[in-house]
């Protein structure tokens, strides 16, 4: 394209020069004019070439960067693997490169996905013979749209997106990484009648502010289909209200927070760093997952393609579980990882918030994990989340069957066993 443009410009100018027979006195002026024109055209061609080259470079930037990161992670991982082998007294053959299986995972800049980033940084995937690319999504909806086009095989997300993945994308739930309820809250202004009414007025739900009457007809800004929405549904249920009793306005979390601070709406559903910001602004958490007794886990979902390669997926689960347990046992260091992840992904965060969030978040111990999957605690949690969705008409009873049948904890149990055999102290 570039060459064709250049030839056309040059030909046009040359033709003009040949065709015109100018008087001698005007020839110098014409030559100067031609020179200027020629220079202009050259500059234009150079500018266009630069634009095209920069466009091509920009287009190719991301994959190259990703490759670079993957390569550096791989090198680092291999180094660590070799160290470990040396420590164990095994002889590693350096001439024989280890063949890695390429896999793509998906995650979010959230605590439930942190184990993946830690494992990537520490080279634990390479130890298992995996060459991993991690696609980071800021929300569940685009993450699920990507799996439809086979962009990733195993992903970690919140339960709201997880349920959609099980119902609409025929994914399989392999387990969960962290509890996912600590920062999900419904905020009101300090001078609102709900806040002024105080806590302890709803029987059985002492943490919720206000009475059911005070919530009726209120405008609540909320990202529908998110865990914040689920928490709102649980709160309304605790108050004995239905979704129609309040006016829920769908907004993205950042816009909702901005609008609420600008005086719009009576309440807002916030999570993650927005919760911390909200409390910093003096907003009152009128309800939370804990207050509404909604204890939901994040979920690990796998595509059919991932399930077909059982061995690789098991290895992924082994590493994710190892990463999760590391986060659980090294909260301070994990907080730094979380902070770095937020900054890398453009999520507003402070080191103080990262520390308090990571330290306050709940994750089961190995024994608790085992107990959850040996009994029916995990499926009971999924069922509870689905009941709220069914009550408000988002999903049907038939979808409940899909969710309950879409869970297979075998690989997570194997991962727990593997962890106990190899890494547990």
């Amino acid at each position, binding site marked *: 394209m570039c060459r064709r443009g250049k030839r056309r410009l040059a030909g046009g100018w040359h033709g003009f020069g040949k065709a015109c027979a100018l008087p001698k006195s005007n020839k110098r002026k014409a030559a100067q004019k031609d020179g200027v024109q020629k220079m202009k055209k050259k500059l234009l061609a150079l500018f266009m070439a630069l634009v095209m080259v920069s466009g091509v470079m920009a287009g190719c930037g991301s994959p190259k960067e990703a490759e670079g990161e993957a390569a550096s992670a791989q090198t680092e991982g291999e180094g660590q693997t070799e160290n470990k082998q040396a420590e164990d007294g095994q002889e590693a053959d350096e001439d024989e490169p280890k063949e890695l299986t390429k896999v793509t995972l998906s995650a979010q800049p959230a605590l439930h996905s942190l184990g993946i980033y830690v494992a990537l940084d520490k080279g634990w995937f390479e130890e298992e013979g995996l060459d991993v690319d991690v696609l980071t999504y800021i929300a569940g909806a685009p993450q699920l749209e990507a799996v439809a086009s086979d962009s990733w095989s195993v992903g970690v997300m919140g339960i709201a997106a997880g349920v959609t993945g099980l119902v*609409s994308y025929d994914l399989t739930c392999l387990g969960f990484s962290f509890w996912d309820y600590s920062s999900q809250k419904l905020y009101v202004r300090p001078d609102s009648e709900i806040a002024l009414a105080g806590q302890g007025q709803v029987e059985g739900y002492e943490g919720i502010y206000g009475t059911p009457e005070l919530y009726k007809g209120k405008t609540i800004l909320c990202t529908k289909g998110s865990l914040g929405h689920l928490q709102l549904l649980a709160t309304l249920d605790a108050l004995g209200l239905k979704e129609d009793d309040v006016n829920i306005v769908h907004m993205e979390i950042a*816009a909702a927070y901005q609008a609420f601070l600008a005086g719009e709406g009576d309440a807002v559903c916030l999570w993650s760093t927005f919760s911390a910001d909200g409390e910093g602004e003096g907003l009152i958490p009128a309800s939370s997952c804990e207050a509404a007794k909604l204890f939901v886990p994040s979920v690990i979902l796998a595509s059919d393609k991932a399930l077909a390669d059982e061995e690789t997926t098991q290895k992924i689960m082994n590493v994710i579980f190892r990463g999760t347990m590391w986060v659980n046992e090294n909260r301070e260091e994990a907080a730094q990882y979380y902070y770095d992840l937020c900054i890398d992904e453009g999520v507003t965060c402070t080191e103080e918030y990262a520390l308090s969030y990571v330290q306050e978040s709940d994750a089961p111990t190995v024994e608790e994990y085992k107990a959850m999957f040996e009994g029916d605690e995990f499926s009971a949690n999924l069922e509870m989340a689905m009941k709220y969705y069914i009550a408000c008409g988002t999903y049907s009873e038939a979808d409940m069957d899909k969710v309950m049948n879409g869970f297979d904890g075998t690989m997570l149990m194997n991962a727990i066993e593997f962890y106990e055999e190899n890494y547990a102290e």
Partner: protein
Amino acid sequence: MEQMIRESKKREALGRMKKESIRNLCLGIVGIAGLLLLWDMVARFGIIPKNLIVSPWEVVKTLAIKMSDTKPEGSLLLAHITSSLIVALSGYALALLIGIPLGLLMGWYKAIDRLIGPVFEVLRPVPPIAWIPFTIIFLGIGLEAKAVIIFLSAFIPCLINSYSGIKLTNQVYVNVAATCGASRWETFCRVGIPSAMPMVFAGMRISLGNAWSTLVAAEMLAANKGLGYMILMGRTYGRVDLIMSGMVMIGILGIIFNAVFDRVERFVLRWRVTR
């Protein structure tokens, strides 16, 4: 005899026009039928996976269900259509009311052009979606804010076309008006505006398309009803049928508006010589 010849020529011309309009209608129907057939085949034979596309019949089924079922996003189809029409038409009306007079005045009076032109040139490249944070702060999350987002996308073609239209006024007509003693304002009203009307209508048509295409962005701001909201919820819940139903509905409403617009244009500009 002469009259008979004239009448027969008129009849012939009318017959030709009728034939041509029937042929055009047939071609349009064949085009749409072809698209539907292709779409159905792509969905039916799994050329694109089922969780990425649904067949046209499933879209029709979803639209029929949505007439009486509020699930999963919480409103009936009619409520979505009404809400979107209010938002889109408010923004569009605002764009016509401000864009057309401003464009005409800028094109006719140099002082206004020099005063407003640079401001317009600065604001013109800013995409409507970039205004969302400011509209939240200054106008909240209600109809006004959404209408302003639509207005920002529909306003620009209105202004540019009105401006260009009046600039292209034949100078001979202006001179004739001046010779007959018309004031500058009278010439603007009686010569400039009528001569700009074909371009103004072209701008209005482009604006209408822009208003509809910005609907999803406007309803991203905040909504609990609307076709854009329906599409967003379909995306959140992984319901491709809901997404495609919203898209089809926007398309159908666009066709209806275009047809109505054609009639209005033909009536208002009936003096125009058409080929």
